[in-house]
């Protein structure tokens, strides 16, 4: 009974905060509405007796949204990120794609004949998760983390071709006078 109440409250919070992401007019509010949505999902995982995954989702998502605030200033310049702005663009296509995806996933969840549980869950879920990740799935995890990290670095390099290290040198001690941009020092 209590679990049901908690689940529905968390579900409502997650969906409402998710909608808020697209309705608010400030980057900060959108970012932290998304964080609230993820925190609600993470707490819902606790109801599945998955404490490690639930708490780690909260940890990672809050950290991610804090980092998002850094990127928001880095790549949007001071003005757009700090001023009221619309959180949606390309509305028609986005709406079509997201409705289709939602329909597909929801249909899958409702119509796929889910298998019934055959074995009991492991006693220590944290340990078995660790063994799965560090044992049979080790190669996948190692590859994925390297690829993800390379993607992040590559995206940063592409998005910021002339950062301050380009303009000011490795030690950030070079000249950076207005109008001096053309012949920057290395």
């Amino acid at each position, binding site marked *: 009974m209590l679990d049901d109440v908690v689940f529905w409250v968390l579900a409502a919070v997650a969906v409402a905060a998710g909608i808020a992401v697209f309705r608010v007019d400030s980057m*900060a509010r959108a970012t932290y509405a998304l964080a609230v949505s993820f925190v609600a999902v993470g707490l819902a995982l606790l109801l599945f007796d998955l404490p490690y995954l639930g708490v780690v989702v909260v940890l990672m998502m*809050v950290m991610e949204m804090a980092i998002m605030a*850094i990127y928001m200033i880095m790549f949007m310049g001071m003005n757009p990120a700090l001023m009221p702005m619309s959180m949606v663009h390309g509305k028609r296509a986005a709406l079509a794609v997201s409705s289709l995806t939602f329909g597909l996933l929801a249909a899958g969840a409702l119509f796929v004949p889910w298998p019934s549980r055959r074995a009991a869950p492991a006693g220590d879920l*944290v340990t078995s998760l660790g063994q799965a990740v560090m044992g049979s799935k080790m190669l996948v995890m190692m590859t994925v983390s390297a690829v993800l990290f390379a993607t992040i670095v590559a995206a940063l390099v592409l998005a910021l071709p002339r950062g301050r290290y380009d303009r000011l040198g490795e030690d950030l001690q070079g000249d950076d006078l207005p109008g001096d941009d053309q012949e920057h020092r290395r």
Partner: protein
Amino acid sequence: MSVVEVAVGWVPLAAVLLLAVAAAAAALDGALAARAAGRPWTAGLPVPWLETARLLRQRRRSTVAADRPLAATGRIGLLIAALLMVVVVPLGPWTLADLSVGIVWFNAMDVLVWAFVWLAGWGPNSVHALVGGYRFLAQALSYELPLMFALTAPAVAAGSLRLGDVVAEQQGLWFVVWMPVAFAVFCAGVAAFSVWGPFAAAAGPELAGGVLAESSGMDRWLVLAGRWALLAAGSAFAATAFLGGGHGPLLPAWLWTLVKTAAVLALLVLLRRRLPTVRPERLVTPAWLVVLPLVLLQLLVVSVVVVGRG
């Protein structure tokens, strides 16, 4: 010594205890400040109470186009994060919640501080506060990974993320003895996520108070009290994870936890006056090139010992 969960009714008492320990640390800081200023140290003891009384009577300052909900969230959040931290920290034989993932829970709560400090900086729509918020995020990128690996060391040694198991494993030998680097890094991390001492650049006076710049009255009290509470909660966790928690001769276990928490807290407060504030951009290089490898080495040593012991 095994740790037992107590009833929910004890939660308010735990909150009062955390605030009392935080107030004691602030009083010690006030006494040291008074002595450094040439006045008798007793004149500084009531500082937290006088400051509280002053702030309670102060008018709330408001700024143009402030984001009030986000500012309020950030300001009240620090205290809430500290209270949520101590939920998993046992006081001697008693704990509020002996979560199977207590260490990760503590870590998640200290990551919440990232969001709250930035929100407190963003909310007032003021440049000094905003720069303070970003300074904290820059600093967080330096301290968080060493802090996480320092937290991993006791978990590896105990073979569990449950704080009750971590305490039980320290029967006879405290973890600080064979993981001193992790302990030191953890203490520095506590000061860093409390925006305090050498890591207080986000609220520095040269930035007109940074994240504190536009807050007054109750708003300011919440942030200041939240910082002290975070420091107290972090010290309590250090006492539990590295200094054996309730283990100790003669005194009852709960008193040992308090004594050790007070010792860590007093050490941090005393050291603060000897250390300058570090600029976040200067922190990055030593944190990633020196501290992080050192903590990883510490973790390797701990892992080898655990494997060797079988």
